[in-house]
């Protein structure tokens, strides 16, 4: 692996002149993790430059450094050849850098128009904010995106896709020289995506440089002129798009070829464990049905906002479905609280491990013992020896990288945190594992380890429902895939029917015309 790395390093271009933006040696340290390690990036005028990498490769952190949200611990940023200090987001904006961030950036309580123009307020002659102007400008911008969202609507009441359109409008409103788009198409329909592509090309023609971050390699290939790859916080290289192909890029992103990366799943598929029938929840999903068998890994996939997480939350008692049935080994069950589901052998690995999976300030061993606290007592009192034993054993079994079981969960890297959450699940008596984005924000090494654990579990007769938005993961790991689109199941494919294009088509929201004909 080291050898390939060296080869790649020599591949990145020598420093060239006339760059719009150049970042050299960017390093960013978070407690316990090096999120960025000596990253290089160069942006030419009027180019569309894709920045790709796995979840957790450091793309978003890098963007936050460029936009002044994070200050790098080392490294320099040059804008048109001059060194700049991005001390805060306003500086970066003043220098002509605009960004569409993922999710984070919306103000749910405010109107669409205000969301677009926050910090860029449309001021009248008197120095006061002119709401009429704000509304008009917002309407114009939204119309240019082909959207009919009303500027007066409350942001929090929009769908995820609509919110994304508003975020795009917000970035366009700034007339930036450098436009950064972090997953702009994550929730868009094909038509909306194409409209966005048109706008981006138009901007390029006007001389704007665009940094595009996208999951979908097809975005990269249709739009980008060049592509840079990050892996585990490190810079891998930059290539002209015409010199690459998708297999190459995946290889660079993962650091080894796909078949080495994903373990071979051999577990036979057994009896039915979980059956979901016509499950519905108002405003979130409708008529969701599927079955999960022992030894099976069933993928539940779809775009952001398709309702995947809502479905698994309704199954595990986090929320309540409004109608439909859940059958556990043929017995109808209904849970109003997660503890009931856990008692019945349903384990949930939640999507957001920091908020839903771990008690961050607690030690690894205390986190691991929380679900089984009653079993680590002696004479009614908690035994710290038993907790220590259990913690050390889990650290060994799951290969958690820490100085010891007494380390706090927040000091661990993303991958090791995820292993602790997995350890909590394995300590229980679950037979069905529901894993919501099990490898989100996890380094490549831990990813492979988590895949191996999943295969081992399937071997032992567990049924695994894996919620995932990573196409390679779905293709390689699962036996069957349930694909969701806008709250409904749009298809269930078995392994033989898999093709990236086919799955993507089922995931993409329908455009208006298609909807009306449907």
């Amino acid at each position, binding site marked *: 692996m080291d050898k390939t790395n060296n080869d790649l390093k020599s591949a990145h271009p020598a420093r060239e002149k006339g760059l719009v933006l150049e970042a050299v040696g960017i390093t960013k*340290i978070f407690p316990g993790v090096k999120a960025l390690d000596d990253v290089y990036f160069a942006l030419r005028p009027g180019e569309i430059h894709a920045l790709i990498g796995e979840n957790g490769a450091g793309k978003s952190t890098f963007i936050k450094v460029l936009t002044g949200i994070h200050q790098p*611990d080392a490294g320099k940023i040059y804008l048109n050849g001059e060194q700049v200090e991005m001390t805060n987001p306003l500086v970066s904006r003043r220098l002509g850098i605009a960004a569409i961030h993922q999710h984070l950036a919306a103000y749910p309580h405010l109107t669409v128009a205000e969301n677009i123009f926050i910090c860029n307020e449309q001021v009248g002659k008197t120095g006061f904010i002119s709401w009429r102007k704000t509304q008009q400008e917002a309407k114009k911008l939204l119309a240019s995106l082909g959207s009919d969202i009303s500027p007066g609507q409350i942001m929090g009441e929009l769908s995820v896709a609509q919110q994304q359109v508003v975020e795009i409008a917000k970035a366009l409103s700034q007339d930036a020289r450098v436009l950064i788009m972090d997953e702009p198409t994550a929730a868009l329909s094909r038509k909306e995506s194409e409209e966005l592509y048109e706008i981006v090309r138009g901007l390029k023609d006007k001389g704007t440089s665009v940094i595009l971050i996208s999951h979908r390699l097809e975005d990269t290939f249709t739009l980008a002129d060049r592509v840079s790859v990050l892996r585990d916080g490190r810079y891998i290289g930059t290539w002209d798009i015409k010199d690459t192909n998708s297999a190459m890029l995946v290889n660079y992103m993962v650091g080894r070829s796909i078949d080495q990366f994903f373990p071979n799943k051999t577990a036979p598929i057994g009896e039915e464990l979980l059956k979901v029938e016509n499950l519905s929840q108002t405003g979130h999903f409708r008529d969701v049905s599927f079955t999960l068998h022992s030894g099976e890994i069933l993928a539940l996939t779809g775009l952001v906002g398709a309702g995947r997480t809502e479905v698994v939350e309704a199954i595990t008692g986090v929320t309540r479905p409004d109608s439909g049935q859940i059958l556990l080994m043929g017995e109808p069950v209904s849970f109003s609280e997660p503890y009931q589901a856990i008692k019945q052998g349903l384990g*949930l690995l939640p999507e957001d491990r920091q908020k839903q999976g771990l008690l961050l300030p607690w030690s690894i061993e205390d986190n691991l013992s929380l679900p089984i606290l009653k079993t680590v007592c002696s004479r009614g009192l908690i035994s710290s020896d038993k907790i220590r034993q259990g913690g050390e054993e889990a650290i060994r079994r799951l290969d958690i990288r820490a100085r010891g079981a007494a380390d706090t969960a927040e000091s661990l890297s993303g991958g090791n945190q995820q292993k602790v959450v997995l350890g909590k699940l394995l300590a229980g008596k679950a037979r069905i594992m529901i894993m919501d984005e099990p490898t989100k924000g996890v380094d490549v090494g831990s990813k492979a380890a988590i895949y191996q654990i999943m295969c081992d579990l399937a071997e032992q007769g567990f049924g695994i429902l894996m919620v995932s938005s990573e196409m390679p993961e779905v293709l390689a790991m699962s036996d069957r895939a349930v694909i969701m689109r806008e709250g409904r199941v749009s298809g269930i494919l078995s392994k033989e029917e898999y093709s990236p294009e086919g799955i993507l088509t089922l995931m993409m929201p329908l455009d208006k015309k298609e909807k009306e004909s449907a």
Partner: protein
Amino acid sequence: MSANTKNGLKIPAWLKRREWLLVVLVVLTYLFFNSQAPSIYTFPKLLNQTRVYMVDVGFMAMGILLVLILGDIDISVASIAALSATVMSVTYNAGKGIPFGLSIILMLLVGAACGLVNGLLITKFKELFPMIITLATSTLYRGIAYIILKDQSAGSFPSWFARDLGYGSINILGLEFPIMLLCLLGFIPFYHVWLHHTVSGRYLFAVGTNLTASRYSGLKTDRIKLTAFVVNAMFAAVGGFFLTSRTGSVKYTIGTGFEMQAIAVAILGGASTSGGKGSVPGLLLALILLTALKNGLMLLYNDAFILNLAVGLLLILVVLIPNITSSLNARRNVRRQRMSLAKT
């Protein structure tokens, strides 16, 4: 986080606990007032004054600690104390009503009922902050006490309650320990073991640290919250019991403002309104500190406002100082990491 300092000296974790700050403050407070008024500010006299400053607030603080560990707050505890004490005195009715033992049980039940109402409202209406809910129930409970008692005061209790418990003391090793104080001190070890060494105690800390993660881990978060509010209210009722015993009579205004004092004690002792933190030794030390401080200020100034001013200052400083030092520490850590980066 790391226990290593730069010169390689290792400070054991138990020495880094914030309780030591409180110990130092207690000693300093005692020495200061003792030098100011050597004849009236002495240990035996301080011990005698614990009945005024320590016991009733102490029980309320023990209850409120549970709620604070959960990350919630309850400002109705003083009203609960007033209402349950009212019920106790009215049902006993100077010996003409039910036996005193039954009145005490009734008092505890009323406390529990108040806590149940708080807890149910808080778990059923999660959108509302406990602060708002208990604010309203606080007015409600004291209002009910007002309806029952009007502006009368109810007195005449059995002599063991008003005299022995209220003013009696026991001589241990030549020191006069108020019976009330012994009740508090006798109870605290059990409370400590329960909170820090049992499953249900640890559940409180888990829920307060991260409610969602605890729920996903299979904890019955709603039931835990409900129970904590009920137990808290019963502690408040016990606080009202001791308060009545020392004042000898009940008015509907009894214990006004004690909720803030109880919250202040718990926070001084290491709890945080954002939850997940709190310790029983810290609580005890905070109680001792406040007793020493209040008694001294009372002797020097005889003024409740100055006393409160000192409590307020103490409260803010004890919370602010660790915040500032930890943010300075974090900054130093980053700088160190950066320096080690520059070397490589």
